[in-house]
């Protein structure tokens, strides 16, 4: 249909036209530059959002399930949850003794609003958590200093404590280390044996305000009849769904729930968090896409406009070419190529510009708040390809109307044009 020589001629012409009118081409592609820049910045920010969410939700561990009276995602109203029965030691024992698919079962008992005394200074509002030594095998057991307490220490009700990162940060002062230092928890003396690494992100950092003592030590001081027991279950290499199902089954049995009754406890896991924000996430992405579509519309108008001018300028030339034998399709491709190239140039300018902006932004943001680790200093590769592709596609669409007009010019009319 179209000969190769005609095709390459059209493309070369398109290229020449752009180079021949540098300023005009630049101005025309400005709209595209803005449009693509919005796409890139939006894509980068949304990627950051997703990464932030991932980081936050993974805090509790991708292979962990926490059974609790409360729903940690905040999805259910407090009213409907407050009347639930607490989780009991019997529940804990039943699950621990009967579960087959999980690697570890770790009971947690919480005492919020505890206070610390260290070197004469008092700190309030600390969350005291009693856990078994197996907690060392969960993300809550990743340490930056010292060690976790042992099974023996747990058995012997030893007064040892592992500090959360924020607590450590507050207490460390000029000391080199806090290990083996004495601390008073709610008035009782404890020895610090370990420090947990920073787990919180800037959204969820109260998790670093916890301090951990052996389960038996806790029970020894505060008794078993306390509120605030939750059960951490680590699936390890086992299938999480299997573990979840087994755990739910065992809990229901332990709490004597009839088959028709709903669960009277919550399953807190990474997946639950992800699901809870999914609607918001979709809305944010939706809004982002709407904005970029709008800015593209504006860019497209700029391209169409310039292409109409380009066609008018070259009317006589089109007439000559058609008289000599150029076909409609040849002219069409010439102008579509010109529009496409304009947008390609626009996309490249955007990519360079945004790369610089993102690098600087990332640098500044991290300086300002180092806990923001979810933003990338570079444009992700797939975003580069997508934005370039969209840009050229938009260009071709925007150039369609003028290109069709050009191809339809009759040689006689076109030759008369001055």
């Amino acid at each position, binding site marked *: 249909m179209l000969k190769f020589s005609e095709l390459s001629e059209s493309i070369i012409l398109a290229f020449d036209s752009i180079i021949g009118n540098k300023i005009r081409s630049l101005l025309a592609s400005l709209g595209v530059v803005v449009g693509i820049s919005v796409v890139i910045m939006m894509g980068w920010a949304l990627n950051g959002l997703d990464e932030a969410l991932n980081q936050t939700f993974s805090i509790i561990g991708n292979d962990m399930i926490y059974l609790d009276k409360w729903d940690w995602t905040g999805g259910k109203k407090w009213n409907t949850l407050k009347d639930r029965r607490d989780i009991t030691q019997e529940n804990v024992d039943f699950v621990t003794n009967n579960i087959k698919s999980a690697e570890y079962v770790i009971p947690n008992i919480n005492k919020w609003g505890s206070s610390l005394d260290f070197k004469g200074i008092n700190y309030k509002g600390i969350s005291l958590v009693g856990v078994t030594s197996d907690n060392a095998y969960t993300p809550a057991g990743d340490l930056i200093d010292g060690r976790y307490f042992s099974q023996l220490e747990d058995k012997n009700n030893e007064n040892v404590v592992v500090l959360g990162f924020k607590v450590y940060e507050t207490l460390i002062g000029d000391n080199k280390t806090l290990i083996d230092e004495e601390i008073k928890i709610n008035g009782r003396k404890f020895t610090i044996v370990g420090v947990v690494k920073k787990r919180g992100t800037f959204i969820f950092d109260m998790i670093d305000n916890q301090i951990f003592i052996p389960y038996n030590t806790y029970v020894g001081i505060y008794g078993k009849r306390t509120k605030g027991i939750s059960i951490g279950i680590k699936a390890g290499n086992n299938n999480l769904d299997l573990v979840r199902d087994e755990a739910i089954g065992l809990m229901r049995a332990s709490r004597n729930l009839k088959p028709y009754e709903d669960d009277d406890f919550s399953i807190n896991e990474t997946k639950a968090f992800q699901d809870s924000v999914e609607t918001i996430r979709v809305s944010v992405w939706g809004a982002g896409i709407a904005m970029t579509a709008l800015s593209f519309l504006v860019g497209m108008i700029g391209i169409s406009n310039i292409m109409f001018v380009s066609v008018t300028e070259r009317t006589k030339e089109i007439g000559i070419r058609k008289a*000599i034998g150029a076909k409609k399709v040849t002219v069409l491709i010439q102008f579509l190529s010109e529009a496409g190239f304009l947008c390609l140039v626009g996309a490249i300018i955007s990519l360079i510009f945004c790369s610089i902006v993102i690098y600087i932004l990332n640098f500044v943001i991290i300086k300002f708040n180092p806990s923001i680790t979810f933003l990338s200093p570079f444009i992700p590769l797939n975003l580069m390809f997508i934005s370039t592709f969209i840009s050229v596609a938009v260009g071709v669409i925007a150039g369609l109307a003028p290109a069709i007009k050009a191809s339809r010019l009759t040689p006689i009319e076109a030759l008369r044009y001055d």
Partner: protein
Amino acid sequence: MNIDNNINTNNSQSEVIIDVNNKKDKTVENIIDIQDISKLYTMGTEIIYALKSATLQINKNEYVAIMGPSGSGKSTLMNILGCLDTPTTGHYYFKDENVSIMDDNELSTIRNKEIGFVFQTFNLLSRSSALKNVELPLIYAGIKSSERQIIAKNTLKSVGLEDRMNHKPNELSGGQRQRVAIARALVNNPSIILADEPTGNLDSKTGLEIMKLFSDLWLEGNTIILVTHEEEIANYARRIIRLKDGLIESDTLNPNPVLF
């Protein structure tokens, strides 16, 4: 139609008499055969007859001038002959093919391969060199680059412009530009050369040079159709068709063509 003999010439060329009525003459190849074509335009409620009716045949190696005042329909006829336009009624057979029912793409191909246009205002691409301009029909014919260059160069050589081939049109004189246009018209070996007031934008001396070139081309076997309103130019042709008010007024052999 008048048939005329012309044996008395001052020139060594002898004239060939062509019987325009006898289409069945086997020694003559027919190129153009138009039958009762017309062209009308509607402007609102008015109908404008650019061409009311025209019937004629043109054979290979004829040298024809189409003459007429402004409004006579000669430009319209020329556009139809050159396949730049289609007639409203009637038939146009180009080398026995019915061109009047062809679509855009087919007409483009005919213009590219069979018709060589020469315009009054040259109509060269101002941003391209002479060589590139001459290559243009070859590009649309699908000839590859290396071959194109050779053919284009040779054609420029034949019109005497080989030392100017890399110049752009604005670096050439009027006569040189028209030569480039003629080279471009010749490059695909067309069946007819259609020239619209080819000397209209040239001074008389240069105009003469161009008419000599056409004469040479005719003697080499080309078929030349000249459209003009000037008697002196028309006189170079061997057959003159006169139009008036959209009709062919006369179609005669030229008894005293200007000779070089």
